[in-house]
């Protein structure tokens, strides 16, 4: 697919769309606070970057996202392991976890900002809360989906439960865990931005919010552009790690890019059970 011809075609398509956008906005005299032309967005982007304003706020959002991602995935992984491996945890805790998941967690952001303040911690906590569930579910399903024959083989060699966990269940769960990390990364970014909307002193979300008050729509567009690039880069970073870790997984070779399903909180690898077995 990636030929010189295709690349130039896709660049051409982009340029034509931008020209069309610019032309329509000018021809119909659309007010700049409704839809700014690409040229104005480009100017805003340049000013924001040149003044160092965007970089400062980007750094804040990035730190919040990465910390939230790390904390949320670690917690999700550990809890997922506990639920998968211990039937008491499964029985007593899992129903509450599901209840918590059915709650749209961004709705908690105002409370979290009240509890943890306008600074870094409330953003990290919100990002972690949103990022945690995909890891929990995927880890759980991955650990439980270990092949029966492989378990029998290990048992026939007198393997302990601990050995079955480390040598079989855990590596077997990795494709699921990596798919969970993929989603958790994007979710963490969403969590951080939403918490910034609610109350923050810095960050790209806060910047969008304040631009909204001043009707600086070109500015907002330029920040959105930065956010989408950030999302893409984070996603690619996970993909790179995933390719390395899952070199043995045949589904990795066919998957060109992981699709992020926003409608579903989690995604299991192809052929794997989507939901926990009942």
């Amino acid at each position, binding site marked *: 697919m990636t030929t010189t011809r295709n690349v130039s075609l896709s660049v051409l398509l982009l340029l034509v769309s931008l020209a069309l956008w610019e032309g329509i906005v000018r021809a119909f005299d659309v007010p700049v606070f409704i839809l700014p032309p690409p040229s104005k967005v480009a100017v805003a982007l340049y000013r924001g970057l040149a003044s160092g304003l965007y970089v400062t706020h980007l750094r804040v959002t990035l730190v919040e996202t990465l910390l939230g991602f790390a904390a949320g995935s670690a917690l999700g992984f550990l809890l997922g392991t506990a639920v998968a491996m211990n039937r008491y945890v499964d029985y007593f805790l899992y129903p509450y976890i599901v209840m918590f998941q059915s709650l749209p967690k961004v709705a908690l952001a105002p409370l979290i900002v009240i509890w943890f303040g306008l600074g870094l911690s409330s953003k990290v906590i919100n990002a972690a809360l949103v990022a945690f569930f995909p890891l929990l579910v995927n880890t759980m399903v991955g650990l439980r989906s270990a092949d029966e024959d*492989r378990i029998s*083989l290990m048992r026939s*060699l007198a*393997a302990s439960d601990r050995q079955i966990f480390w040598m079989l269940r855990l590596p077997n769960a990795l494709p699921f865990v990596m798919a969970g990390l993929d989603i958790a990364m994007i979710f963490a970014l969403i969590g951080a931005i939403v918490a910034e909307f609610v109350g923050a002193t810095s960050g790209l979300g806060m910047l969008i919010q304040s631009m909204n008050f001043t009707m600086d729509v070109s500015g907002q567009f330029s920040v959105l552009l930065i956010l989408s690039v950030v999302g893409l880069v984070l996603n690619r970073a996970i993909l790179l790690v995933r390719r390395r870790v899952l070199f043995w997984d045949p589904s990795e070779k066919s998957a060109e890019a992981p699709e992020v399903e926003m409608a579903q909180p989690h995604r299991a690898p192809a052929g794997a059970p989507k939901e926990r077995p009942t």
Partner: protein
Amino acid sequence: MQDSGVEAISISNLTKQYASRAGAVTALDRISFGVAEGEFVAVVGPSGCGKSTLLKILAGLLATTSGEARLRGTPIAGPRRDIGVVFQSPVLFPWRSVLDNALLPVDIQGLGRERYEKVAMDLLALVGLTGFEHRYPWELSGGMQQRVAITRALVHDPAMLLMDEPFGALDAMTREHMNLELQRIWLEKRKTVLFITHSIPEAVFLGDRVLVMTPRPGRILEDVAVSLPRPRRLEVVNTPEFGQYAREIRGRFSVQGGLDG
């Protein structure tokens, strides 16, 4: 070889019942047999005759309902370290290389990789996989994967091999070839082998003895000693003696109502 003191496998009056919604199902009904040290015994029978149940009991993966099963004189109380099992599918771990797959028992039993890596390499050479040590399972054909499984079953030098239709998933040509290979390996290693199959020619070709089983409830119908000279070549299947054994066993099944496969 028959009278080397303690038998490798001795089964007496073994019964296994499963609970099911319709009541208890008898998978094995008071079966008794013995296998001498170093002997190759093939178990042949149709699906549902309890062959796999028998193997799982010997592997220590299933408990008996009544009767006794002993390996080298001691009752089976769970999985043991002195047996190697080969299942119908290779059951390899995709994240382990061929060599690492072969070393799985060594890792599990903490035997020390330094010493056993050489053993595994020699075994891989024996099964004809030299040069593939650092490949991964998905890079191998089905027959090659099953060779890795055989290597893995032998690496910790177990006293006996339990094989549950190990070549059942292979195509006919590969299967014949694997039968020859297995005979060659067995002649070199002289392990006690219990080989489960539903192919009569395979059983006669490989076994010193063939145990014929019937289904529902699983019983041992006959114990046929096969005295064809070794090493047996593939052409042996065309000899009158081979045909005689095969007919004798097949005749048993036609009385009982047929054999699939």
